[in-house]
């Protein structure tokens, strides 16, 4: 198989600011940000997050994404080998475009969040007729 080899990435941890809700590490999800004429699309890798638990907040041009993770390991499970830790996902962006908040759509599929942010339609400038007497 000549498929390109993946370049491994460590999970990026958020530096604590003291404002978090729950104890434990918080991670920054890897994202792809795409834009066309009509919308901004954000795709975020947040494995372990349930669609109904994702929190998306947009105010003052700041977009905040929170993806809580519920524990996957049963109480009776004992750790044998651990390469990564569990934790909620959190990321913030400043948006340059004005978004039509009512039309934002979000979908979670297999640990990937797809967030569509349609741009607010720009009001066309009104042509002002000048009457000549």
């Amino acid at each position, binding site marked *: 198989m000549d498929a390109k080899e*993946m370049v491994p990435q460590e999970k990026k941890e958020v530096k604590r600011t003291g404002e978090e809700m729950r104890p434990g590490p918080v991670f920054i999800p890897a994202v*792809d940000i*795409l834009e066309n004429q009509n919308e901004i699309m954000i795709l975020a*890798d947040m494995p*372990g997050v349930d669609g109904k638990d994702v929190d998306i907040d947009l105010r003052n041009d700041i977009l905040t994404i929170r993806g809580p993770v519920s524990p996957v390991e049963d109480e009776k*499970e004992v750790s044998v080998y651990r390469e*990564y830790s569990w934790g909620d996902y959190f990321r913030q962006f400043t948006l340059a475009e004005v978004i039509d908040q009512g039309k934002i759509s979000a979908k*979670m599929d297999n*640990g990937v969040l797809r967030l569509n942010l349609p741009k607010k339609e720009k009001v066309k400038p009104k042509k002002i007729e000048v009457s000549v007497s």
Partner: protein
Amino acid sequence: MAVIRWQTGPGEFPESASDFDRLRQGMEWLLDSFGSPSPGFTSRVFPSINVTEDKDYYYLRAELPGLRSEELDISVVGNQVSIRGERKIPVEKGEFNYHRREREDGGFRRTISLPMEIDSDKVSAEMKKGILKVTLPKHEKTKPRKIQITANK
């Protein structure tokens, strides 16, 4: 007199930095490139794997967002579990420009050796919310057997 320019590597610093700062930053850059790993260093392989156990099973978990079970290949031989696959990130329709591209795609392969032998016939795996969970029953013959002690009358 020769003027020596310090090689400073990625990242600029303001002109007002003293020569001592420049020297220190230059040295730190060299250490990052060739020195010991920084704290928090994790194994540089994908995907990261956690293994837990209870009395009868091993549980292997890996974070594989966006992977479909058809794109994964899991095999078990003796006490070794191999996970192989390829993540494909589809091109989005709609003539998009990318502002950021952080998510990786490509092929991966990992093999983990477990402490005890596994009953390969009864291994099961599920993919949920982008997390792969492989349930591996410990082989009967390697499970510790309770030994009866007969009392001598």
